[in-house]
């Protein structure tokens, strides 16, 4: 069983490569007469073990700057809130915004709250969304749905006042009484409408409201804007209502999403927006990937040129390191941005450093006349102190920059955090490869000059 020690590493390596394969890569070529045509996909796990479902797709998630999309920042108007309620209100708003964005079908949105001194902000990243105005409209709606009736019961208001100004009394029926809103089409005109299905309590309330307003208009207001004011024909007890405004299908859909996700407890206003075209991202990423690959090849050539056989081992360790880190990015998953890629590149540099440190120490021990075996053991031992201290310092810095507790006095912005996260993963992986993998590879492949080992 001479080769048995190779089996496990080879299997592990194959799985690792599988996790890191490119997505949807079409391979088509011809070897003499047999045609090869298939699509490469990375590993995708979908297991059902003893009732536990494990589902994992190893795919790269790209950030806004690489994929294109919109970045919006809203500021909340908290002037009307009590200080102790503010935090809850902001968090609730965040959840509602996330719900709206999800209902609208944006993939992988990132919604975060930011607190800057006394102002509260909510940032929304929408990868793939290029039409900002639509997104702003959807998110920014506070969606306070209210049913209003005519203010004074005796109808003394001058009859020439426009109808909507007469509807000043809140009936007590609002958005919270709605169980579900959906888009329907008027069977007669084919126009889109929003149908409301009330909760049990809401249905009852709607019954009493319509009963006392037979022959009179009841207004439906959204954020104090009238949408429609139909005249009640009879008492409605089924617990359903229809809002028919002059909607387009899109508008009706937005309105139903807003009502379904609930009202925002605070009014918000747009303070920042960035719209990044995907083509910009695509060329940037392509150029940088090519440049990175060329840089990496140069590094590997340098290592092999300078350290010979040990350099070949370092090159192997580095490739494994690169694959490991990339698999981690996909497994967590980390949303990759340009600064994130930069953090990764920096950590590659530090991984190379670990290898160089180890080799220099081994050489040093060999110069002292130690045999190779002992030199490797001592060299590793000596180098590990420096590697450990240097990497722990970097990890400390990355940790503070990442701001895991989301403290308001530290950066809460995606860019610095993305950088810190990939740097931390990269450094942790480099500690692992430097200590475990390089050592293993030396055991497996290195043969001391002169054949003795």
């Amino acid at each position, binding site marked *: 069983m001479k080769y048995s020690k190779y089996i496990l590493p080879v299997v592990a390596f194959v799985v690792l490569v599988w996790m890191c394969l490119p997505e949807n890569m079409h391979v088509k070529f011809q070897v003499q007469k047999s045609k090869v045509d298939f699509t490469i996909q990375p590993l995708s796990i979908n297991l059902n073990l003893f009732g536990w479902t494990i589902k994992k797709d190893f795919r790269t998630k790209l950030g806004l700057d690489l994929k294109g999309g919109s970045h919006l920042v809203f500021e909340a108007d908290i002037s009307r809130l009590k200080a102790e309620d503010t935090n809850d209100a902001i968090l609730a708003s965040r959840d509602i915004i996330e719900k709206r964005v999800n209902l609208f079908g944006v993939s992988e949105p990132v919604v975060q709250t930011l607190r800057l001194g006394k102002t509260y902000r909510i940032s929304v990243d929408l990868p793939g969304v290029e039409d900002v105005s639509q997104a702003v409209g959807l998110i920014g709606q506070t969606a306070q749905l209210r049913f209003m009736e005519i203010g004074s019961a005796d109808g003394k208001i001058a009859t020439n006042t426009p109808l909507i100004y007469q509807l000043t009394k809140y009936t007590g029926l609002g958005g919270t009484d709605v169980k579900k809103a959906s888009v329907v089409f008027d069977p007669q005109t084919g126009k889109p409408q929003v149908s409301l299905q009330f909760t049990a309590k809401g249905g009852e309330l709607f019954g009493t409201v319509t009963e006392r307003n037979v022959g009179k208009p009841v207004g439906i207001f959204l954020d104090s804007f009238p949408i429609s004011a139909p005249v009640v024909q009879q008492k409605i007890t089924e617990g359903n209502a229809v809002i028919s405004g002059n909607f387009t299908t899109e508008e009706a859909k937005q309105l139903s999403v807003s009502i379904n996700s609930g009202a925002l407890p605070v009014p918000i206003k747009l303070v920042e927006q960035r719209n990044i075209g995907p083509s910009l991202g695509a060329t940037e990423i392509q150029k940088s990937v090519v*440049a990175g690959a060329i840089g990496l090849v140069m*590094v590997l050539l*340098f290592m092999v040129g300078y350290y010979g056989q040990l350099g070949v081992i370092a090159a192997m360790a580095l490739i494994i390191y690169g694959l490991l880190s990339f698999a981690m990015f996909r497994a967590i998953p980390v949303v990759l941005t340009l600064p994130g890629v930069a953090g990764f590149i*920096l950590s590659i540099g530090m991984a190379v450093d670990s290898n160089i*440190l180890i080799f220099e120490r081994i050489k040093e021990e060999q110069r002292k006349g130690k045999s190779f075996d002992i030199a490797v053991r001592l060299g590793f031992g000596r180098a590990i102190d420096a590697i450990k201290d*240097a990497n722990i310092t*970097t990890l400390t810095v990355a940790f503070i920059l990442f701001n895991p507790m989301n403290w308001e006095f530290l950066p809460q912005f995606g860019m*610095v955090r993305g950088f810190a996260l990939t740097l931390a993963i990269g450094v942790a992986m480099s500690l692992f490869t430097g200590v475990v993998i390089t050592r293993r590879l030396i055991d497996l492949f290195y043969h001391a000059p002169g054949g003795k080992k």
Partner: protein
Amino acid sequence: MINFLKYTWLYSLISALVILSGIVSIVTFGFRYSIDFVGGTNLEYSISPVATKDAVKKIVDGEKINYSSLEITKTGLFLKSKPMDEQQELRLRTRLQRQLSAKVSIQRFETVGPVLGRETLQKTLIASLLATLGILAYMSFAFKGFNFAFAAILAMIHDFLVVIGTYSIFSRFFGAELDTMFVTAVLTTMSFSVHDTIVIFDKIREYFKYEGKGDIHHLANKALTETMVRSLNNSMTIIFMLLALTLMGGATIRFFVLTLLVGTVTGTYSSPFIATPILVWLEQRKKKS
């Protein structure tokens, strides 16, 4: 063994020259601030078919947009201005479309309020001060002494000054802008600087352990001689990587990578030639007192 410490005066002179010219540049030229810091709008259009520069410029001027720079290229336009809202943007776009009878599409449309920039800077500053304290604490513990940590931090401040000084020069002559990417690069440089210093200090710590705290001058020279090859090799590999990215990478990250390059060079340089002499000086002072 090479007596590296003999030339401490030369290292100080080089560092002083670089840092001084940087500071002079910061004082006289300052920085070009990106919209991350001052607030405003970046707007980039691609226009097809191609229009003449004059025609495009006339339309933009006609819209009374308060722009600070306007670049009209073969494929479109790029302008920076005071904050623009969506209506203004839409108006400009429709007007360009109508009058040039061309297809105009948005490549980039960013509007940032200026407050964000100052907030980012303040928070990042607090974060780096905290990180410095963290480094001080960890190194004092790992090296069982305050002098190592202190020397490493001073070298880090040296690198910080070199990087911001050179960036001001880049800013003046090549149009580099101070943005959040730059802040990231500075933070990277600072952590790299300490990382690099620790490797040399580790060697000195080892000599302390085996040979006792004898002649610190001699031990430091010995450590420098032993680690010089690894320092050079290591920096070389990082420089290869960054050089490839600077020359061939995308334009948005060019100055970012360039800053990292400067940071790597000064980070490597400061470990043997700034941090080590400071450590030797501190240790000698401790002995005398």
